[in-house]
């Protein structure tokens, strides 16, 4: 169990992705079963890896599974794979893997560039703040999973919409849910993820203002804080539009979700990677070599 590496489940997901792509051309039950089997095997390996990380985290009195930026990204990928397995088992015909696996592989790939050391922020947190920190990182993780789901659902909606407008049959190639269902799922993904992200960012702000920053100098003018703030404002705009518009569905919702969530994803992941790989990135980096504070955890902290 201790020998499980990131490569194990990364390779499993890559093969499952390739089989899902193959299924687009030649759909058959055997390919589906092999694909789901390999993805499930990867999911088990992924789970074991995270549990190992959690054990390591506990020794250092850190929240399980979320002790480092790398763990945090891997937890996010784990949630997405779980979502994929759930959807695939609910409807065998759906081609969800084609959309979700690239995200999963991207997240796991980016985790290579993120710090796997325990967060200084979490080290610095007193035991009384542990609950706040836990709420902060877990709401950000689930909220981010919702953002990813929003991106994928929007993409699926736009593809299905395009195909139907071009009179293409939905019985061949990509098997996608109906526009109505995609729109409804998209609506819920935004409804769930935005409040959770807000809670995550809000608690991060509380932690920041209460001084549990691991001795670093942070300010509201920090570029990372500003960019994350703008992304969050974009999502809040989308959230407000959905709440205020009686028929916030369809292509408009898909595009807006794609833009808002996509921007958030790109900026957050980009900032994480930059913060981890470039010690000089952002004003405080000198105090955080190789960015143990990086990731959405940190982004939330700074906002």
């Amino acid at each position, binding site marked *: 169990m201790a020998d499980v590496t990131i490569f194990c489940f990364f390779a499993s997901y890559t093969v499952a992705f390739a089989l899902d792509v193959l299924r687009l051309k030649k759909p058959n039950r055997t390919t589906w079963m092999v694909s789901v089997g390999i993805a499930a095997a990867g999911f088990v390996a992924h789970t074991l890896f995270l549990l190992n990380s959690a054990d390591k985290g506990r020794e250092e009195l850190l929240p399980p599974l979320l002790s480092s930026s790398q763990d945090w990204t891997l937890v996010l990928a784990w949630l997405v794979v779980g979502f994929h397995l759930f959807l695939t088992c609910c409807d065998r015909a759906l081609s969800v893997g084609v959309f979700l696996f690239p995200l999963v592989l991207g997240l796991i790939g980016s985790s290579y560039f993120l710090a796997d050391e325990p967060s200084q922020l979490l080290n610095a947190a007193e035991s009384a703040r542990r609950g706040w920190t836990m709420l902060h990182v877990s709401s950000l993780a689930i909220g981010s999973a919702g953002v990813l789901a929003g991106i994928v659902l929007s993409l699926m909606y736009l593809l299905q919409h395009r195909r139907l407008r071009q009179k293409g049959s939905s019985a061949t190639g990509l098997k*996608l849910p109906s*526009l109505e269902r995609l729109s409804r799922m998209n609506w819920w993904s935004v409804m769930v993820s935005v409040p959770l992200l807000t809670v995550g960012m809000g608690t991060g702000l509380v932690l920041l203002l209460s001084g549990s920053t691991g001795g670093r100098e942070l300010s509201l003018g920090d570029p990372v804080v500003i960019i994350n703030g703008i992304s969050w404002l974009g999502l809040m705009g989308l959230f407000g539009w959905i709440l205020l518009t009686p028929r916030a569905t369809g292509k408009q919702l898909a595009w807006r979700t794609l833009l808002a969530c996509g921007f958030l994803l790109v900026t957050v992941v980009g900032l994480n990677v930059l913060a981890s790989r470039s010690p000089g990135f952002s004003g405080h980096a000198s105090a955080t070599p190789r960015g143990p504070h990086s990731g959405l955890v940190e982004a939330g902290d700074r906002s």
Partner: protein
Amino acid sequence: MNLQVIYCNHQTASLDIRERLAFTGEEQLADAYTQLRNRFPKSEAVVLSTCNRVELYTAQDNDAAAPTHDELAGFLSNFHGVPVEEFLGDLLQHSGSEAVGHLFRVCSSIDSMVLGEPQIVSQVKEAYRQAEANEACGPLTNALFQCAIRVSKRVRSETRLAEGRVSIASVAVGEFARGIFDRFDDKTVLVIGAGEMAEETLQYLQDDGVRDVLVVNRNPERARELAAEWGGHGFGMDRLAELLPGADVIVAATGADQPIVDVEMFSRARDGQRDRPVFVLDLGAPRDVAPEVAGLDDNVFLYDVDDLQETCERNRKSRSQEIVQALSIIENESERFMQDVYHRATGPIVKRLREQWSDVSQAEMDRLRSKLSHLGDDDIGQVEQTVARIVNKLLHPPLEALRDEARDGTPHGLLDALRRLFHIRD
């Protein structure tokens, strides 16, 4: 004896051409039959015009009187005011056994967009009924169409062609509407037209859970009748514009020769709800919904019969085994029908020959009776039976030869020989 068909269908011609060549309504058909009778007085004719095909069958006893392909194309051109060069390439022709096989395939739905669809049989029956009402058909077309209906029954009962999704509406809803909507029990369905196709569509939609059904028709009574059957509401065509905005699914299946839903009407219906998807299925040919409606906004999903081609082709491939079996039945039936037709062509000669020999034997018997007056009735009866047997035995070889020859076509040479040998006059 000649049978032929010229036709264009969903495989050879686009909907644009088909709708221009279509015969819509009884008045237009009556006019067409009048013109056909005037142009080709010695020909029987049947016009079959559906959303997928326009076919003109002609038949005549005398091959020389048969209208040519160009003459029939010229008739279509003049009647519809469409230049010949615009559709000549889309027009196919069959004659003799090929024409018979074609009608059998059409009637058995092998040639339909949706394999196994049942509507074509009633469309063929209706086409023949119209021809009969307009006194355009005759014994040959009668035999042909009766046989086609019988063959279609045989194909449906002896193969599994009519199983599964077998209507255009079911294919369209299954392939496209299900890509748009998750469920139908909370949708409003508006059906324009109250014919067989509309009924078929309603049946399928209700199986899919539709509850709110609205039917509009030129005849409001008929609309109300049909709607009542499905627990819906029926209206006259004057309420169409008012009902359009509330509909999620619109199915148009009328025989109108002009679009019933134009861009202006639909645009007004979309005011204030352009973010709401609407599925429009136009099963009419000519089309009932102006094609430009699809461009009004991103949430209008308009499909006409030609948009279902790809799906129907897949449906066809998946049932290729059934097609092989059906084609085998059709081939046998076509052969048998043609033998009957050819045999029927020899009928007058055979009849004359029998009459002639019977007359000769009767005359000889009369002469014998007057010469041998002492013979009793029993003896005369015995002699008559003997003579009749001799006549039949003598006639048997030539008639057998005639029957054999008629298997492969009308035996013109043998018929001429018999006429000359036995001095038979037509």
